[in-house]
């Protein structure tokens, strides 16, 4: 499934919206989610899951090929925690 399939789903459900407008609508949803997560805010979608931005401290890693020690810089990462509902749906 790609964004095009989601555009199609939105288009069939919305009267009076063209394909192009439906595409812009879908685009705006993902853009708003990216903006929100980019600020470090979390997003909770009931029935789907939570997107949470976490701060990771710097740590020492190792190049697995050479064994050389390297410092992995402090960074922010995104984690997705699926909702219990979604987990249940996959295991019926």
């Amino acid at each position: 499934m790609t964004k095009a399939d989601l555009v199609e789903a939105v288009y069939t459900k919305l009267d009076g919206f063209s394909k192009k407008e439906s595409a812009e609508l879908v685009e705006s949803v993902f853009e708003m989610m990216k903006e929100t997560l980019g600020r470090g805010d979390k997003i909770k979608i009931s029935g789907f899951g939570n997107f949470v931005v976490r701060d990771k401290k710097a740590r020492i890693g190792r190049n697995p090929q050479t064994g050389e020690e390297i410092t992995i810089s402090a960074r922010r990462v995104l984690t997705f925690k699926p909702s219990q509902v979604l987990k249940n749906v996959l295991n019926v």
Partner: protein
Amino acid sequence: MTKSQLIEAIVAARGYPRKAVEVAVNSIFDGMVEALQRDDRIEIRGFGNFTVRRYKEYVGRNPKTGDKVHVPEKLMPFFKVGKELRERINDGEAYAGDDSDDDDE
């Protein structure tokens, strides 16, 4: 931010009718749940990919009592963040990690 706050934020930023944004947001997440249900992977360029991963059965333990419990095989959704979103979250700082396996962009 909850789903209804996400809808409000899009209405405020773009001026679309609230009803249309509601329908869009709901059909996006409903559509993604249905896709995962039929074991279809979801690729949203710039955002990330969702896939279904199969975990083998194992013998776990109840951490309180120490009793052995059998955990059956299960399917779990897995999200891999896309390059654009990862960089926006991390403010474009340098990565020590290897990005060569990134199939998102």
